[in-house]
């Protein structure tokens, strides 16, 4: 082949298109940084919209594999879309790089030589938050999360590391619950010292609104995972100030690649700020680049490419990391907080490193050794 073909499956329609757009923006930026060539070959990217539906995602993946005959497939925000699409990619021996979704199956029994992640396994981020709460000496927590797979993973993640008492655990209807006052009331009455929540996207905005309006913000501190990010922050505004979260990437991580990424991103997409979704997509492009360069552009050498990717031999925006046997990063997690930056805008800032070289706990279940 005289070009490198990459399929990119993400959500580009509906309310969550904002995530897909960010991933695409960052991926495009990565290609710009690579000169839009990989090992001298032009790169061709085909973006496909999964509409956040598993069977549509699967169909798009099939299209990319069968019709476009791509060399790599990147993307996947949602666990269920990824799981539906996985078999197509693996059966056709096409490399698939998850730039966000991290269901435990992917780290465990469904791991595959052809599948890599530039994100994390679902449990890792909340587990890091649990560790941080230990460090802070928090004695008790009330957990609230949406009643779906990732929601349960997140709460389980906190529980796996948090040493204090879990005084309550509430699951809310997903995706349709609008009002959290029942849960907030329970949390306040539980006399817990802290609340932990996981609410991605719009639900996070909604939760913080209600948390602040109910006056609980001044009573019980909140800890979060994936609830406050650069996408939700402009909507959460002051409600998010002082609310800590854990993340493997923050925009102010002190490495040269990251600085360039953040700067160029803001230049290329005025008014927007990069997110961890984007950073993961950016890393995926770099990962692909490293593999193709290693085989000198011979895309048929799949084993060699796999071996190269396993080394994670590229400059990740989050700083260097290693791959576990299951192709999930072994990486640091940072504590982030919301602050007002120089021009008075709210932004996320790294406060501390919670945990170094954290590996997910499903890697033993993976048959690859």
């Amino acid at each position, binding site marked *: 082949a005289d070009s490198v073909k990459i399929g990119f499956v993400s959500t580009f*329609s*509906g*309310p*969550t*298109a*904002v995530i897909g*757009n960010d991933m695409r923006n960052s991926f495009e930026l990565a290609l710009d940084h690579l000169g839009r060539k990989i090992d001298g070959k032009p790169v061709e990217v085909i973006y496909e919209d999964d509409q956040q539906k598993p069977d549509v995602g699967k169909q798009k993946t099939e299209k990319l594999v069968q019709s476009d005959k791509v060399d790599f497939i990147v993307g996947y925000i949602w666990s269920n879309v990824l799981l539906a699409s996985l078999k197509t990619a693996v059966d056709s021996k096409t490399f698939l790089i998850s730039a966000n979704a991290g269901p435990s199956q992917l780290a465990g029994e469904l791991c595959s030589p052809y599948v890599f992640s530039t994100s994390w396994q679902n449990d890792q981020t909340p587990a890091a938050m649990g560790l941080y709460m230990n460090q802070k000496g928090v004695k008790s927590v009330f957990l609230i999360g949406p*009643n779906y797979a990732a929601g349960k993973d997140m709460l389980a993640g906190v529980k796996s590391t948090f040493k204090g008492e879990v005084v309550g*655990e*509430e*699951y*809310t*209807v*997903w*995706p*349709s619950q*609008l*009002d959290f*006052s*029942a*849960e907030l*009331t*329970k949390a306040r*009455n539980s006399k817990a010292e802290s609340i932990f929540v996981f609410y991605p996207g*719009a639900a996070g*905005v*909604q939760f913080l*609104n*209600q948390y*602040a*309006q*109910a*006056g609980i913000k001044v009573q019980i501190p909140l800890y979060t995972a994936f609830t406050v990010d650069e*996408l939700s922050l*402009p*909507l*959460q*505004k*002051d409600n998010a100030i002082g609310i800590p979260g854990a993340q493997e990437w923050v925009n102010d991580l002190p490495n040269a690649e990251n600085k360039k990424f953040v700067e160029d991103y803001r230049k290329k997409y005025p008014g927007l700020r990069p997110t961890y979704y984007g950073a993961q997509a950016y890393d995926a492009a770099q990962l692909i680049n490293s593999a193709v360069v290693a085989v000198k552009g011979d895309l048929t050498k799949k084993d060699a490419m796999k071996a190269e990717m396993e080394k994670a031999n590229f400059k990740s925006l989050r700083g260097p990391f290693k791959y576990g046997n299951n192709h999930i990063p072994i990486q640091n997690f940072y504590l982030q907080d919301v602050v007002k930056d120089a021009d008075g805008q709210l932004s996320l800032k790294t406060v501390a490193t919670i945990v170094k070289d954290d590996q997910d706990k499903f890697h033993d279940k993976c048959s690859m050794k």
Partner: protein
Amino acid sequence: MYLVVEQLLNGLQFGLLLFLLAAGLTLVFGIMDFVNLAHGSLYMMGAYFAATFVAWTGSFVLGALLALGATLLLGIVLEYVALRHLYGRDHLDQVLATFGLILFFNDAVRLIWGPAGLALPLPAWLTVPVQIIPGVYYPAYRLMIIVVALAVAAMLYLVVMRTRVGMLIRAGASNREMIGALGINIKLLFTLVFGLGAALAGLAGLMQAPILTVQIGMGENILILAFVIIVIGGIGSIRGAFMAAVFVGIIDTMGRAFLPDLLRKVLSGAAASTAAPALSSMLIYLLMAIILVLRPEGLFPAAKR
């Protein structure tokens, strides 16, 4: 005990929040007999207009008023251009047409405002929690929602059930031809009523935006809830919709608040912690199914009022 009272209040308040959206829908669907799935889109437009106008004028009240006017206008235009041709038609034609409108509005909003959603911050005077009984705080804004919802309910009831215009709307819904033969310009009347329904949707959108979000697709899940309420209450009955909204609000809230603990008492820990969330997710639908099995025309069938 406090806890129960407070949760009851939460439920009541959530019910009224739902009623705000259901109100416009009762008018358009319950009384004009037009299945308008795009009601959720008008709700969304109300919220987007409000967020835009509030940011623009810097005043919550002014922005809200402008947004109301804008949704009213949008509703009228929509009705005039397309929907008025669908009144006498099969409900399913209306479903398909207004489903098309949902698709259109979602993408139009994404094109105009971007996919990220907007913030609609509250003015400071509405953000303070108010102590309503000793030890129980309530967000001031939610109290305002209660007041607005009650006012809307009263207004709707009076207009529809007590005025000649209300009679004409109901009559026109059942037999358009005949109402025309009585010399009433039913087209114009329906356009105005549809506009009012749209404005009510917009009102719900802008009132709920500071609590919920301003997002693409924000109207869809809540629209289903609004339909549930109208159906439980009995289509066409304003009193029914109001009671059902409160009922659903309270059952839903109380269910989420107390069901898990109750289940834990009867079931083993593990079984309870999987069953409880599943059950409370289903609660509203379970409730609707049971009510409809027992009372196939809802709690307050309209004909008997």
